[in-house]
């Protein structure tokens, strides 16, 4: 790649002010002394000026008052009471000051139900059950121990695909 090609690859970034000072200075010096690269710079500047002029001319004719009236109309019209309610609820949930309240509320609810099922000072009891999941002998066994507050969920397959032993398994509990 010739020096001019390298410089012309960088002219855009140079005009945008995105080159390091030393590189920027090197491009500037080369462009000032090289007619081809100076022409490349002019082409880019003409593209920029044409596009900018085209859009600026359009935007300068845009009047603020009717523009704002239409924005305001949308704001007033589209905010029905249920939308406002949803927005209020969303702002409550997404507010950084209240963000901690969501996990805290979940923990409280879980804690409440946990206490309801595991009564403090109540009679200690163990619980076990076995349910068949499908007709192919797959079962789920649930064992809960009040003393250690441990729940074990055990998935297993009855090799015979039968459930005759379920009652036995319930009585003796799963073999670990």
């Amino acid at each position: 790649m010739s020096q001019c090609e390298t410089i012309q690859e960088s002219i855009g970034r140079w005009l945008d002010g995105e080159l390091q000072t030393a590189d920027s200075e090197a491009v500037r010096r080369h462009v000032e002394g090289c007619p081809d690269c100076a022409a490349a710079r002019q082409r880019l500047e003409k593209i920029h000026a044409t596009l900018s002029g085209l859009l600026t001319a359009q935007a300068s004719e845009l009047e603020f008052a009717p523009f704002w009236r239409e924005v305001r109309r949308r704001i007033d019209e589209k905010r029905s009471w249920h939308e406002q309610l949803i927005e209020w609820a969303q702002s409550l949930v997404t507010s950084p000051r209240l963000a901690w309240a969501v996990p805290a509320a979940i923990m409280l609810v879980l804690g409440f139900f946990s206490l309801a099922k595991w009564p403090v000072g109540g009679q200690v009891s163990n619980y076990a059950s076995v349910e068949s999941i499908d007709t192919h002998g797959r079962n789920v066994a649930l064992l809960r121990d009040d003393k250690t507050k441990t729940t074990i969920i055990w998935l297993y397959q009855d090799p015979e695909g039968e459930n005759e032993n379920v009652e036995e398994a319930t009585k003796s509990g799963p073999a670990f």
Partner: protein
Amino acid sequence: MASKRQDLVELSDWQLVEKCQAGDADAFQVLVSRYHQKVFMVILGLMRNRDDALEVAQETFFRAYRKIKSFQGGSSFYTWLYRIAVNNAIDAQRKQKRNPLDFHETMDGLFEARNEVARDPFADVHDRELRESMMKAINELTPEHKAVIVLRTIEGMSYKDIGEVLGCSEGTVMSRLHYARKKLQDKLSAFL
């Protein structure tokens, strides 16, 4: 009332955003007056038609108003606003592609508004052809390439800010800009 408006005009974007978040619609009006032309220009650069661009610009401010409570100031307000504008424009343009407008119809609308005093008739014809070819060339770029060149040209945004608006890296902005400029130079070589 006029005094309040004068006070609002002197506030920074972030101060106005805070007032909007507290429910002050007048503060939002000041933000709209500050940015409506630039947002419109960006959208017009991305879309084919002036009326469509106006519609999308108004919808952009409406959506910004609805989302302003979630704006935390992690980026500048205008970067955040342009992100909404570009996303809206790209969405609208993709919908348009399924239902394309006649190119000449849209271009006529775009150039009729320019009320220039006639100078050299040859220069006028040349300029008009250049503008038409420019819009045609811009419209042939992908929405992503259009967006980088429009944001850079209109707002003079840094690559970092453009990356924030478009959700891509500075390197991606740089390569897209380079590609878009090369394409435009190729398409407009007869005029440059």
